[in-house]
C-alpha cells in the first residue's frame, strides 16, 4: 500500500503511550454534528442533526443515516466521506457472510469486522485513521442492539449513547431519561428531546434524521413528514 516512502505507519506512539493521530481523529468526531442512539426493549432508534451549510442545499438528497443490511442501520459523527467508505466496506462484509452461510450476519459480527477495518487504518502504511465514530443499530436473534465504533477500532455496546458535538450534555440527559423497560415510541421521543437540548435554531423534519428498527426487524429511515409528526407529539 503506497510507495516505499510511506510503507511505514503514519500513526505512531507518543512518549506518553498515546496514538496522537487517533486522539486527533476523535477531535474530528467531536467537532461533527451530534448523533445519538437509544436501545429500547422492542427496538432501537438512532438520530442525528442534519445542519446543511446553506439553504440552497437540496436536503432530500442528503442521507446521513444508512442501512447496512435490511435489519442493521448506521449513523455517524465526523467526516461524511469517511463514513461512506466504511458503509461500503461494511455492506460488502455483510454480503460476504450472507453468501458464505446463506444467512444474515449477526450485528455483533458485523460490528467486529467493521471495527477491525478501522483498526487496520491505524496500523498500516500510508493511511490515516477514519475521522468518524459510528452508531450501529440493529435487531437480530439476540434482540435489539446498539453499538458505537470509534476511529481506534474499539467498539462498545450501549443502552444509549451520543457522539459528536455536545456529547457530555446529551449523555447526561440520556442518563437521566433512560429506563430499561423503555419502548420504542418512548425512545424516539427521548431521542428527539435529547437532540433538541443542544439544537441551535428551529428543529424540524428537514434538519434532523431519525432511523428506527422494531421487532419486525426492518430498518427504516423516517420521512421528514413522519419526523414532523413525532416532533408535534413531543411539543
Amino acid at each position, binding site marked *: 500500500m503506497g510507495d516505499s516512502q510511506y510503507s511505514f505507519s503514519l500513526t505512531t506512539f507518543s512518549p506518553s503511550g498515546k496514538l496522537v493521530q487517533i486522539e486527533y481523529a476523535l477531535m474530528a468526531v467531536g467537532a461533527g454534528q451530534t448523533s445519538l442512539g437509544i436501545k429500547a426493549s422492542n427496538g432501537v432508534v438512532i438520530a442525528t442533526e442534519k445542519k446543511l451549510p446553506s439553504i440552497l442545499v437540496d436536503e432530500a438528497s442528503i442521507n446521513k443515516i444508512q442501512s447496512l443490511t435490511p435489519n442493521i442501520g448506521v449513523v455517524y459523527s465526523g467526516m461524511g466521506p469517511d463514513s461512506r467508505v466504511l458503509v461500503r466496506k461494511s455492506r460488502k462484509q455483510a454480503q460476504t457472510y450472507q*453468501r*458464505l*452461510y*446463506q*444467512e444474515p450476519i*449477526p450485528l*455483533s*459480527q458485523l460490528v*467486529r469486522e467493521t471495527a477491525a477495518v478501522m483498526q487496520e487504518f491505524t496500523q498500516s502504511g500510508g493511511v490515516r485513521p477514519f475521522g468518524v465514530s459510528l452508531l450501529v443499530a440493529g435487531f437480530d436473534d439476540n434482540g435489539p442492539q446498539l453499538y458505537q465504533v470509534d476511529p481506534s477500532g474499539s467498539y462498545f455496546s450501549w443502552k444509549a449513547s451520543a457522539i459528536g458535538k455536545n456529547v457530555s450534555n446529551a449523555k447526561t440527559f440520556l442518563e437521566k431519561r433512560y429506563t430499561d423497560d423503555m419502548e420504542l415510541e418512548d425512545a424516539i421521543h427521548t431521542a428527539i428531546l435529547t437532540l433538541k437540548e443542544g439544537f441551535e435554531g428551529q428543529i424540524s423534519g428537514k434538519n434532523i434524521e431519525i432511523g428506527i428498527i422494531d421487532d419486525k426487524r426492518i430498518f427504516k429511515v423516517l420521512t421528514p413528514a413522519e419526523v414532523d409528526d413525532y416532533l408535534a407529539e413531543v411539543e
Partner: protein
Amino acid sequence: MSITSYNGSALIAMVGKDCFAIASDRRLGVNFQTIACDFQRIFKIHDTLYIGLSGLATDVQTMHQRLQFRHKLYQLREERNMRPETFASLVSAILYEKRFGPYFCEPIIAGLNEDGTPFICTTDLIGAKQLSKDFVVSGTASESLYGACESMYKPDLGPDELFEVISQALLSSVDRDCISGWGGIVHVVTPGQVVTKTLKGRMD
C-alpha cells in the same frame, strides 16, 4: 479405475422422530486391496451435528480438517454452535471454491436444529446442496443404498427402530459392493445423547 472409487465407501443418514442416524462402512482400500477396517468417515462437528464424507480418503480427511477449523473459529467468534443449515451452506461454499480442481468427496450432513427437529442433506463434489426429508446416501455403494433405503425406510421411527433400519440398509447394500463394507458404525443422535454402535458384517 475412477478416482471416486479408489478407496471405496458407503454412507447413509436417516431422519427419525426427533432424532437422526448416520452410518458408514469401515473399509479403507487401495483399489482391490483392503488396507484397514477401522477407517473413520463420520466426524462430529458438535454434539448435534455430524458430517459423513465419502470418496477419496485423503480428501475425506482434509475436508474434515478444514471444516473443523472453520467451525471452531465460528464457535470462538460467534460464541455458539453452527446450525445444520448454516454448516451445509459452508460445506457447499468450500467445495465450490475448488470448482475446477475439486475435492473428490461427497459429504452427507446430519444434525438437529435448535428446536430438536432433524436435518439432513448431501452435496455433490462441487457443492450442489440436496436437502431431503427422509434419507441421504453417498459412496461407491450408493445405487444399492438408494434401493435399500427406499424399501426399508418409514417416517417417524424412534431411535431404536431407526438404528435397526439404517443398519440393515447399510449391511445389505455393502454386501453388493466389493469395495465397501468390512464392518459398519452407526451413530443415533437425539437431543440429549448420542448412541454409537459398531456393526458386525461380512468381512469381505
